[in-house]
């Protein structure tokens, strides 16, 4: 396997016996492969009759839980509550005809309030950014779909926050609950999101409610983890001071623990918001209207320009939400001098309400003004135009340039030089790299494949991991979706390797100067806040709809963590070590290869691990482009009610991802200990 060759220096640290045992497994695998022509069919692939009917069995189980145990009534009841909330935000944000029948709130009011909030959290720059994001959204005519997305987000994020906080408190309070919930959380975090979607649809009806439920469930795990982390970190004497003041248990929680864990809880809030956004966009797959759905349909019909504009909106919203919530984390309370008047203490609140009311009034007044269309826009009727759009930007008034961008991009791609490069890349990757690699992986007999994975695990991590890897992949084999799983794995591995070839050199380059390191880290940070969907846009733009585009989109997505952790790993190498190398006369390359990289490797492994997880995640989304892996089957289940099959497929992805997670984490830990990096 190519992967093995890319991890140098691990064998000697692990001691001979471990790699010898791995070698034996490897030999067995090779023997099986060599013997392939004479192997009986049952040894190459598991025969049909040996595969247990997992999906129907799960279906029966779900039906039992749903109907016989009456879970459906409970969920439908909850749905009712959630629906009221969703309808209310939908009414306020984009005027759905539901209680309280007040909306839609005109966009300038929201933009103004958003700008004031931005100012309160992060000063002028944040104010301009927040206001600008809303103005852009309105002007390109995406206000309504953006608000459809936001209406789910504004319900899902607070609910996920509260549920996560509650469960986090329970996990902190009761060790037993913590022990039960930890493994569930780590499985949840590797489950492909399609696995969240279908149960949501079945238990909570199609539409916004199902989308909201899937989103909430998806965003809860990190909130739980951050809550327990924060509560555990409250200093003992602060707790004791609370106790000595005579706090009851509830007072301890609400007045001592939770406020003292503020920072971690707010970091959790940031993650909840970002995950909610990522998931809300993806709920397009179950037919939720909003930015995601529009993007999906535009990409489907190859409207690159419009896709691009929506992509920009999503990215702007993501950055805005991320920066604002992060600013909130950093913002510590500041004191006011004694005797500060009331209005001064609450100046932001007053500004917020004031801006909202003033712009609300302006919009209401502007509603009666005549409409100036975008096409007739000139300097003279600009005031009229502005007056007109302050109420609502209609389609004719929007400044969207989807068609023009479309033509521009297509024109650009059609330039001979560019086209030659993309064409050649497509051909080269497809014919020379991807297809041969895929065929090779598919050719390997199932038992040999499992042995290979085990050998890899044993070599890098150890016996326990090897056994677990073997078990997990055997389960995959028995699920009956072996070939598709292998194709999924092939896509993940080839994209990750390509991503390494880009990300690691980029990281090495960037870490040579502080300035570049800072810049690229910022870019990586920003890129990580984008909903994964976004990465499909450039891929489709460049390569159209095919395997290469899938690999390409995964590649961009997976390069981000690789670059980031390479920089961080290299940066944390203690200076006295590089100085020692300098003093012994090492060249730059020697220093890099023999000092810096080995020391940075454990940190880089974290990035590698994330890259693989991202790849598994992306490969499922990319199924939308049309691949033959698990993702596509998963997507198909969404159309029907194949809950059992959906689960089996989801578990396959999860099992493979968990295997890698386990191996790499263990390896990084042992390396860290061996290097004394704690």
């Amino acid at each position, binding site marked *: 396997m190519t992967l093995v060759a890319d991890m140098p220096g691990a064998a000697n640290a692990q001691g001979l016996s471990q790699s010898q045992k791995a070698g034996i497994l490897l030999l067995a695998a090779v023997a099986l492969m060599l013997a392939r022509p004479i192997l009986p069919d049952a040894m190459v692939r598991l025969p049909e009759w040996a595969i247990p009917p997992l999906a129907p069995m799960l279906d029966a189980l779900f039906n039992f839980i749903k109907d016989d145990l009456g879970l459906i009534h409970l969920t439908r009841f909850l749905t009712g509550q959630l629906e009221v909330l969703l309808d209310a935000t939908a009414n306020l944000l984009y005027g759905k005809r539901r209680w309280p029948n007040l909306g839609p709130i005109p966009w300038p009011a929201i933009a103004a309030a958003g700008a004031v909030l931005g100012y309160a959290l992060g000063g002028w720059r944040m104010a301009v950014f927040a206001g600008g994001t809303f103005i852009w959204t309105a002007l390109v005519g995406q206000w309504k779909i953006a608000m459809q997305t936001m209406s789910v987000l504004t319900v899902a994020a607070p609910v996920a926050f509260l549920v996560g906080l509650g469960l986090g408190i329970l996990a902190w309070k009761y060790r037993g609950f913590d022990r039960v919930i930890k493994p569930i959380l780590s499985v949840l975090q590797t489950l492909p999101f399609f696995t969240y979607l279908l149960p949501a649809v079945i238990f909570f009806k199609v539409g916004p409610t199902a989308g909201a439920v899937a989103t909430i469930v998806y965003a809860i795990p990190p909130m739980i983890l951050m809550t327990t982390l924060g509560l555990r970190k409250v200093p003992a*004497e602060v707790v004791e*001071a609370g106790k*000595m003041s*005579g*706090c009851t*248990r509830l*007072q301890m929680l609400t007045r001592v623990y939770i406020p003292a864990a503020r920072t971690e809880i707010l970091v959790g809030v940031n993650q909840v918001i970002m995950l909610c956004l990522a998931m809300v966009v993806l709920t397009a797959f179950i037919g939720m209207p909003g930015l995601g759905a529009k993007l999906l349909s535009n990409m489907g019909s190859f409207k690159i320009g419009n896709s691009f504009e929506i992509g920009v909106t999503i990215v702007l919203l993501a950055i805005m939400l991320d920066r604002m919530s992060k600013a909130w984390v950093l913002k510590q309370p500041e*004191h006011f001098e004694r005797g500060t008047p009331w209005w001064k203490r609450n100046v932001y609140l007053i500004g917020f309400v004031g801006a909202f009311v003033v712009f609300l009034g302006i919009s209401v007044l502007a509603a009666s003004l005549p409409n100036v269309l975008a096409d007739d826009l000139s300097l003279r009727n600009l005031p009229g135009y502005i007056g007109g759009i302050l109420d609502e930007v209609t389609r004719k008034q929007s400044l969207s340039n989807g068609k023009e961008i479309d033509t521009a991009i297509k024109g650009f791609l059609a330039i001979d030089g560019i086209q030659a490069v993309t064409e050649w890349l497509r051909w080269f990757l497809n014919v020379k790299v991807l297809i041969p690699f895929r065929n090779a992986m598919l050719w390997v007999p199932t038992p040999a494949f499992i042995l290979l994975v085990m050998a890899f695990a044993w070599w890098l991590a150890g016996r326990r991991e090897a056994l677990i890897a073997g078990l997990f992949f055997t389960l995959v084999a028995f699920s009956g979706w072996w070939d598709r799983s292998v194709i999924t794995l092939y896509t993940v591995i080839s994209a990750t390797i390509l991503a390494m070839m880009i990300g690691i050199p980029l990281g090495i380059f960037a870490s040579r100067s502080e300035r570049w390191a800072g810049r690229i880290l910022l870019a990586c940070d920003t890129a990580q806040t984008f909903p994964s969907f976004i990465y499909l846009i450039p891929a489709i733009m460049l390569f159209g709809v095919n395997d290469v585009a899938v690999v390409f989109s995964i590649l961009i997505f997976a390069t981000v963590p690789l670059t980031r952790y390479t920089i961080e790993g290299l940066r944390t190498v203690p200076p006295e070590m590089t100085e020692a190398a300098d003093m012994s006369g090492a060249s730059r390359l020697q220093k890099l290869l023999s000092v810096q990289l080995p020391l940075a490797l454990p940190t880089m492994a974290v990035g590698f691990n994330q890259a693989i997880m991202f790849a598994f995640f992306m490969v499922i989304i990319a199924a939308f482009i049309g691949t033959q892996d698990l993702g596509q089957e998963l997507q198909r289940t969404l159309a029907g009610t194949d809950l059992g099959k959906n689960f089996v497929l989801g578990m396959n992805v999860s099992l493979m991802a968990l295997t890698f997670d386990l191996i790499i984490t263990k390896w990084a830990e042992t390396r860290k200990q061996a290097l004394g990096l704690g």
Partner: protein
Amino acid sequence: MSSSSTSQSSPVISARNVWKLFGPSPERYLKSMDKGMDFEAIRADGYIAGVRDVSIDVHKGEMLVIMGLSGSGKSTLVRCFSRLHDITGGVIEVDGQDIMGLSEKDLIALRRSKMGMVFQSFGLLPHRTVLENVAFPLEMRGQDKHTRRERALEVVKLVGLEGREEYFPRELSGGQQQRVGIARSLAIEPDIWFLDEPFSALDPLIRREMQDEFLRLQEMLGKTIVFITHDFDEALRLADRIAIMKDGAVEQCDTPDQIVLNPATEYVRKFTEDIEKARVVHAGVLAEAANGHSLEGAPVSAKASIHDLARLLVEDGRAYIPVSDADGQVTGALDRAKALDVLLGSGA
């Protein structure tokens, strides 16, 4: 020194054979272990003896000072008194009630109504301003907003933090933070006060002011105070009795005079070696029974330390000097040679 006048009353805090062990299953270990084991032997079994077989009484209106090296178990013992730690063995009674037997509700009531504590590393609530921190225990006692604000302002002024009422703890220096912690416990004026190195971060001036404040409260209102310090001068200024701890056990608990004159163990002798005994020992303590001596001339006060009397001792020709109590009544005779031994070192 009020210990003699209060020792007849029943103790406010009474600890009997108290143990506090840290480790995987301390109760079981305590049952099985040999009670005579020392700190190291216990540690070899994987347990840390925070408090080792301590029996001590603290009386009403008394100031008990606990001293000992770092890690000797001072803070742990005080945490046992306030039941911040559940003890592993023994009994602690506060006002005659076994505190380990208290329900959660009663414990909260006890802390709200009677106890206060100043923490070694302050334990301020990071999200509350100085004023809100100081008012916190009052809030828990259910005082209305206005009253507790008034009271908080008062004590914040008392500890010299006027003008910083609205600051957050992280905006204050270490000494200022410590004063917030002191103010917080002053605000409620508890009957039983636990002070864990309360003045360690203060400058000498404020430190003296604070010491005076606590002495005043103790004498005027009869507060019971358990005070931890590393500073012997402070201990001497404040203490009715001093308890010296080592490896979780109390080596000796007695008045300062007795500790320096008659150290119970070699460890205590070493611990008090560098102290100028003449400053500690009082004429009253050194005095013998008056009968049998022919006493003449002006008496010295029983409360005067030998150091105070240095000039007189050197210049006076009398072999025995009369000692009088606060009312001027002669109560004993001071052997001048013995007193000079204390003053100059016994030559040993």
